[in-house]
């Protein structure tokens, strides 16, 4: 769009134009300083890409970047030092920092510096308190669910393992126990007639003396 008119310059430098285009482009380029700068930049880029010339830039660009970085770092440092305790949330940090700055810079803020400190402390506590349960609840929910599950499952599996292991260790004892209990119940089934006879005999014995 805005670079549309620069396309012809780019094409010219890439040697992809015919004679008439070359003439018109050169004519346009001379007209504006912007086009002249573009021409110089493009030719420089082309030379660098073709390894025909080392990149030589003036100091202003690097200085500009350094200044920008310095600004960014400064901002981050101030934010960290003032608000990092309040919250780990990025928005909270910047918002609270800016609010505090505004407040301290305002006339009422200066006049009531003590209140400002108290308010900031209160804010820190409020934000801190409101943040702690949040983080805790995030951790609590899975913990609250998993802990019973783990404690519920683990003893059962252990207990069932123990029960399973014991009979295998004492299988002889277990089979004997089962056999004896079954036999006891079997014996009881078929006992009545005999028992009755003995009972009546005993009664007679009791009566006789």
């Amino acid at each position, binding site marked *: 769009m805005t670079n549309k008119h620069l396309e012809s310059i780019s094409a010219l430098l890439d040697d992809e134009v015919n004679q008439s285009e070359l003439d018109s482009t050169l004519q346009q380029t001379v007209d504006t300083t912007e086009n002249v700068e573009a021409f110089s930049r493009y030719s420089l880029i082309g030379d660098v890409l073709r390894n025909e010339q080392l990149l030589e830039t003036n100091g202003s660009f690097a200085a500009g970047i350094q200044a920008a970085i310095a600004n960014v770092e400064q901002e981050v440092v101030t934010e960290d030092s003032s608000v990092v305790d309040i919250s780990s949330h990025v928005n909270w940090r910047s918002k609270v920092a800016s609010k505090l700055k505004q407040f301290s810079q305002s006339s009422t803020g200066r006049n009531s510096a003590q209140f400002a400190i108290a308010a900031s402390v209160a804010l820190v506590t409020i934000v801190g308190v409101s943040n702690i349960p949040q983080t805790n609840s995030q951790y609590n929910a899975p913990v609250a669910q998993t802990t019973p599950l783990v404690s519920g499952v683990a003893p059962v599996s252990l207990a069932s393992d123990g029960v399973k292991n014991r009979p295998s260790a004492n299988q002889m004892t277990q089979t004997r126990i089962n056999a004896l209990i079954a036999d006891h119940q079997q014996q009881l089934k078929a006992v009545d*007639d005999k028992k009755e006879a003995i009972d009546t005999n005993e*009664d007679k014995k009791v009566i006789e003396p």
Partner: protein
Amino acid sequence: MNCYFSDFKRLISLKTFNCLKLVLFVSLLSSHVNASTLNDVPNEKDNVELTDKTPITSTEKVNAEFWLAKLKTALTESNFQAGIVTMKADKTTTYNWVHGVVDDEEKVEVESISPLIGGGISNLRHNKVVTFIEPNKEPYSIQSDSIRRFIPPIFYQDSSQLTDSYQFVLVSKNQIGGRSAQLIRIESIDDTTYNYWVWIDVQSALPLRLAFVNEKSEVIEQVLMTHLSLFTGPTEEIIKLSQHNLPEPPSALIATHQETNNWNMSWIPNGFSLIKSDRHHLSITREVSDYYLFSDGLVEFSVYVQRQLESFNSPLVLQEGAMSFVMVRSDGFDVTVVGSIPPETAHKIAISVKSI
């Protein structure tokens, strides 16, 4: 009205603390009144029961023996159909129980007990022949005057046989399943066996509830009647049951066992006597065992003397409901006592077994 009004005015004029005190006092008073009215209610009930009893006492002497005699008559002579639940430890079993007397050409007492769930063993009794009917098995019969499932056989006989080791106590009346029930406690005199409580239906004299109770008065095993239909005569079902042909019980000659006399039991709880002793193979393990069966009429216990097992921690004590299982290592042999007796009693019996 005036009185209340003045009270109210006074209340308003008083300080809040005093108000609170008053409210507390009033609530205490009202709760006291509530308690006294609650106390009154059972007293009234008692009176009603007493008046209930008086007509019976005028005709017959009412004691525990009277009720147990009525129980025997009801068990052997009435026509009824009942649902039964037995609760043993965490196991619950349900039965359908039918009893009747068919008096056609000859008098036939019919009793049928079949499990409500699953294909377990069903029993059918005609007079003194009890048949065991199992799925996929040939039915067989034995000689017996009762089906030994949840009613102790002593209740079909003379309960006075128990007086050596038990005392009968006539206790209050309860409600069981909407029916009035008379509780009879059969209590072990020396606490070597469990107490047995029987709730007898006042109307039909059938057992509504039976329970093994330990010395702490805790119910450890019980039988509960869930419903009861009484009939004036034999129903179609009872008549049908009476017409089945039951297999003949084996003659006593075939059933004789080789008696064993190798062991001496120096301690047996009071009232128990030896019912039988033999040497037989256990059906599951084919292990040979010297066997003794003791009974006091109400409960039984078995004594097994076997070769030593290689590994078990003596004494091995297991319990399920009222049934105890105690295995001890003795001098060169293992003694096991199984039965519906307290584990302490079973252990005492087991350690008293000595070789002759």
